[in-house]
């Protein structure tokens, strides 16, 4: 039995080490774990439903057979309808999977940035990473015409490089001058304007065709996503999420108690911060490089998740990933089907659907954690 003071504080619990309060705590944790698991199941079902919807109608059965076929490494040949199979493998599946991965990565990136700056306004968008990537992509589209050797990766690489450059500027300035989150956001917004202005300047001298591509890119779109891009982003997410999940307690300490207390709790604050900054920037930049500027998910994904499941990063990290994935998948599917055959860019749909939902959540918010 444990006693802290010895003045009768020691409660004798006959069956377990802890009492009713501790039991309630563990139960609430289990509830939250169940919510995460259920919402993940829901995500998969939604994804399957979204995959078979479109101009070329396919069925869940075909999708299931196709997945089994792929899982058997070509040992089985189940799908007889080649047209359906091609649509699924080369159009629908990469698009749907990318929507989920991109949403998850942006949302997790937002959670991490908000945790280390202790400010709920920070996101890949507000620190300028998104528009920097936009600028990188537009100059690549402009001047990359003659550079065939760089191939299809030229635009994403340039976007990625500028996103990193912007993040390095913002974070190193913050670190060097010892600035707080507010100064960092202001720096980010200033850079965001700068990069937007430069993108606009580039558009002035662009040809008709280049202009169309630049505009399309800055809206953010999942059109023509290839499997290699999906794979790359998936690898990034598969690294970022588990690494940060293992540091969930540290992130909790940083957000709720501050740097000095976190250090007094035996945590290496610099290392946690460095890791979180690096991984959040890489995750956001990787996704944005391929799908364009979808800024909003990185801001509202974390908020939505926090309102539902609370700020404990053990649950917040996986759940915000799911929230972001659902959001982007729903927005893209809506954009695909609403005015079919015209496809609305996902970035636009996210804003149209997301903003009202977000405002509603803020207004009707209850200040109670989910227990």
């Amino acid at each position, binding site marked *: 039995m444990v006693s802290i003071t010895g003045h009768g504080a020691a409660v004798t619990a006959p069956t377990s080490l802890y009492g009713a309060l501790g039991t309630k705590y*563990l139960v609430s944790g289990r509830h939250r774990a169940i919510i995460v698991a259920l919402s993940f199941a829901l995500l998969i079902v939604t994804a399957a439903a979204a995959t078979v919807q479109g101009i070329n109608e396919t069925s869940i059965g075909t999708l299931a057979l196709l997945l089994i076929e792929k899982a058997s490494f070509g040992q089985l040949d189940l799908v007889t309808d080649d047209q359906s199979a091609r649509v699924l493998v080369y159009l629908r599946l990469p698009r749907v999977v990318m929507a989920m991965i991109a949403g998850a990565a942006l949302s997790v990136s937002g959670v991490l940035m908000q945790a280390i700056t202790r400010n709920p306004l920070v996101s890949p968008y507000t620190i300028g990473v998104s528009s920097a990537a936009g600028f990188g992509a537009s100059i690549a589209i402009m001047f990359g015409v003659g550079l065939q050797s760089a191939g299809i990766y030229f635009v994403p690489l340039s976007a990625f490089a500028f996103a990193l450059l912007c993040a390095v500027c913002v974070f190193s300035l913050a670190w060097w001058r010892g600035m707080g989150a507010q100064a960092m956001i202001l720096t980010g917004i200033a850079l965001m304007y700068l990069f937007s202005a430069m993108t606009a300047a580039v558009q002035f001298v662009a040809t008709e065709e280049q202009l169309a591509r630049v505009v399309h890119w800055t809206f953010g779109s999942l059109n023509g996503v290839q499997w290699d891009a999906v794979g790359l982003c998936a690898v990034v997410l598969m690294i970022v999420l588990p690494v940060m999940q293992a540091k969930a*307690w540290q992130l909790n300490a940083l957000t709720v108690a501050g740097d*000095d*207390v976190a*250090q007094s709790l035996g945590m290496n604050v610099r290392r946690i911060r460095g890791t979180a900054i690096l991984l959040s920037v890489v995750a956001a930049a990787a996704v944005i490089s391929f799908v364009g500027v979808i800024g909003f998910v990185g801001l509202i994904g974390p908020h939505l998740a926090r309102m539902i499941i609370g700020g404990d990063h053990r649950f917040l990290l996986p759940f915000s990933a799911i929230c972001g994935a659902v959001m982007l998948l729903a927005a893209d599917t809506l954009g695909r089907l609403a005015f079919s055959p015209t496809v609305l860019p996902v970035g636009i749909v996210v804003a149209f659907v997301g903003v009202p939902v977000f405002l509603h959540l803020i207004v009707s918010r209850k*200040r109670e954690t989910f227990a």
Partner: protein
Amino acid sequence: MSSLHALNLRQMVDGRAVLDDITMSVAPGEIVGLVGPNGAGKSTLVRAMLGQSRPTRGEVRLDVRNILSMSVRERARHIAYVPQRAPEGFPVSVFDTCLLGRAPYMRTRPSGHDISIVEQVLDQLQLTHLAFRTMDALSGGERQRVMLARALAQQTPLIVLDEPTSALDIGNQLFTLRLLAEQVRERGIGVMIAIHDLSLAARFATRIILLDRGKMLAEGAWHDTLTAETIQRSYGVEVEFGQLRNAPIIAPFEMGEP
């Protein structure tokens, strides 16, 4: 039980000595009250005692070892820290926040032992009814009480507090200080507390250290350190002393005030 010693501490910031020639200690069973005007170096001394800054000269020792030679995790098992205020705005529950105090002992998840300690600390600080509220939904006083609970859950032989009462109402100030005094009496821990209110410092601290412009102006029992002369020299105010129900009262007046 452990004690904390500062030996000939000097801390230079931008070519200026923020702390100079500080030699002091915090022993088991005592509350050392650190007082002094704004900018006297109280927070700098607190950081140095926690091992969170590297002194320009001198060293801080935990028992016989230089505190900077210890790992952060080992330090965390000896010294707990309570800041002036906790950040707000993130919805982490009170129970989870207190569990952070067990972080220096945890691997990946809290054990039943950790959970039972948090239960007891919450009970002790009368926070049980708030256990599942989130930190952003609490008042400043409640949040500060949670920070204290978190530090107690750490179960360290030493606790260092940086002006933990300055954002609290008088009821919460008394509650916090009485609780610390009980911990010192019952568990024999050592406490160092930076504090602005001289009357409360005199009433609760077993020993006072008066800092002025980075130097120790006086050290000892309150009636030896907080005299009209030392207070005038450091704060530039006149004081009158009184006593009500055994509690010392130190009332400040501006120079020449009638």
